[in-house]
């Protein structure tokens, strides 16, 4: 294959690859900007109790159907007798019903948005963690041991991969939501957040495990692995000490993108009723509620949808930025690949 140019290795002056990657990332202003957006979103949802207690004076599940609030001196109903919830008040009522009421139930949309966001983000990050860790272990085992271990793992992944993931996730989500899960000593009730977390994690594993397995297969052919074996390294040290660090950049990028993907997955499941169950709520469940009033109060569905989009967009851009920063070769392309000097040079 052609040799690509890596000037960094020589002008580095002792800076390690991580330091260089950080520098490259910081130069990508768009990615940094969206990292900022993501951080803001996190702060936003973390502020939920503060807002609920001090500004809106209500919780995410408290209903206010028959109440009235004071807006600019006037008394307004939270929910009209026809069932129409009040629209966004912004600061008119001191911050109460900032974004309006969410439905006939008269719950504070802003408070729900913040608390729902916590659930969405929590599920996104937790599932991404579980999926990535599982995928790493499976990929390492399959790629390193090969043989029948690989066959078993690869075939299982294939079968999972062949399923219409969303449908099966839906089915599993709903059936577990009804009956809960009882596997030997493990018992999880149907309404627990662990159900959607487990369902999403399991079905996303093949998407990550397959590429990782591929990389492990390629890496284990390389000389540094042979060298380590020659030094007497055992399988654990090889897998975790030699191969895994080389997977690090792939893993980081995948992790970021998986959070985004899983948040969309969760939102889809919850929207249809097979994900997060009441009394918990997430941005996905909020859209279900808002969809009923789509023709009259479109904001109720659009706002949580927009939050999901912003979060996913930020994660995608940051993930891309990480990929570019960690693997500059994907960006630097000289016109014709040339036999230009590998900085280390080669002896005659």
């Amino acid at each position, binding site marked *: 294959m052609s040799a690509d140019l890596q000037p960094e290795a020589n002008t580095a002056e002792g800076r390690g690859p991580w330091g260089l990657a950080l520098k490259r990332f910081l130069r990508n202003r768009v990615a940094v900007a969206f990292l900022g957006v993501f951080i803001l979103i996190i702060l936003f949802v973390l502020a939920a109790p503060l807002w609920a207690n001090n500004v809106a004076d209500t919780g995410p599940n408290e209903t206010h159907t028959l109440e009235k609030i004071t807006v600019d001196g006037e008394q307004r109903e939270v929910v009209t007798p026809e069932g129409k919830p009040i629209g966004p008040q912004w600061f008119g009522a001191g911050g109460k019903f900032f974004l309006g009421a969410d439905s006939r139930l008269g719950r504070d949309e802003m408070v729900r948005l913040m608390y729902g966001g916590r659930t969405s983000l929590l599920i996104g990050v937790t599932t991404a963690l579980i999926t990535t860790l599982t995928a790493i272990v499976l990929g390492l085992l399959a790629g390193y041991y090969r043989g029948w271990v690989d066959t078993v793992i690869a075939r299982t992944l294939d079968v999972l991969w062949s399923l219409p993931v969303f449908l099966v996730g839906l089915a599993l989500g709903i059936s577990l939501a009804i009956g809960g899960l009882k596997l030997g000593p493990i018992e999880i009730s149907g309404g627990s957040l662990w159900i959607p977390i487990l369902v999403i994690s399991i079905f996303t594993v093949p998407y990550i495990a397959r590429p990782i397995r591929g990389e492990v297969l390629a890496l284990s052919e390389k000389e540094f692995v042979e060298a380590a074996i020659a030094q007497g390294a055992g399988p654990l040290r090889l897998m975790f000490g030699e191969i895994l660090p080389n997977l690090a950049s792939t893993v980081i990028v995948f992790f970021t993108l998986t959070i985004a993907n899983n948040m969309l997955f969760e939102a889809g499941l919850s929207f*249809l009723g097979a994900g997060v169950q009441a009394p918990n709520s997430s941005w996905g469940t909020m859209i279900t509620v808002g969809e009923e009033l789509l023709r009259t109060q479109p904001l109720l569905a659009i706002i949580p949808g927009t939050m999901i989009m912003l979060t996913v967009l930020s994660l995608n851009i940051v993930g891309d930025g990480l990929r570019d920063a960690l693997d500059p070769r994907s960006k630097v392309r000289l016109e014709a690949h040339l036999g230009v000097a590998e900085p280390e040079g080669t002896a005659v």
Partner: protein
Amino acid sequence: MLRFVVRRLAGMAIVLFAVSVLIFLIFNVVPNSNPAQQLAGKNARPFLVKNIEEEWGFDKSLPEQYVTMMKLVVNGELTSYEPRIPVNDRIKEGIPATISLSVGAGIIWLFFGILLGYLSALKPGGLLDRLLTAVAVAGISIPVFLLAPVFIYVLAEQLELFPNGGYVPISEDPGEWFKHLILPWVTLAILSIGFYSRVLRSNMLDVMNEDYVRTARAKGLSERKVMTRHVLRNSLIPIITLFGLDFGATIAGTAIITETLYDINGVGSYAADAVTNFELPPIMGVTLYGAFFVVFINALVDITYAYLDPRVRLGEAAAE
């Protein structure tokens, strides 16, 4: 080539079997507690639960249960319990709508995905590339359940440019069929256009660095011929397989959300309704139908891939 096809089809049968076992496990074994209760649905009466127990044979051993279940499915006797409609029939009713939605969206996203990806890759880093990449990233990030409500509210409700959801069979009125499907097609396609254009762009950039592209230039081929006959041709191979997988998944009913939001009575919305009502038999039926389609199309994709890339046909190639 023929041997490859036969091997692949045999593999497909095995996977289908494994999938059906998996589905069986998911529905009847994993959730535990009372499978009959679950099948009966949320508000079932006790004697219904008893009937189901007998019909499905939950008192018998697991393999026997599996056989019973498969018999029900194959004979078209799988029914939902509230109301009592055979699942297979309802699925068949929904297929034309789902196929109309999938095929239309598929054509749109394949065409535009390839077009945008190709244009981006011609001058990487250039203005057009950065613009298209931004559009693509935005496209992947917009969830269907944001886009659809926005489209419906703005274009259908307010501006009244398009009908407000629903499905008109093509046999009834082709014009209306088309008009009703445009928004759903675009909604479904936007996400994939973004994804495909980026994948193609990335593939093309990789291929452009390959030695054989250098050879093509050294032979004196025009830039256009180099880009289409060598770069694009080789970059498309993974795209075609990806498309096969995605398209299979879409026909399998993964367009559930789109169908629900646009009021299209396809297989997907049938599944969605079943979920809302906590009805398991329809979900089981739809899942099996979907799994069959996915596995079948995966096998087709593998065969197409072997046709497009001769190295795959001869097993592990690399004669050296």
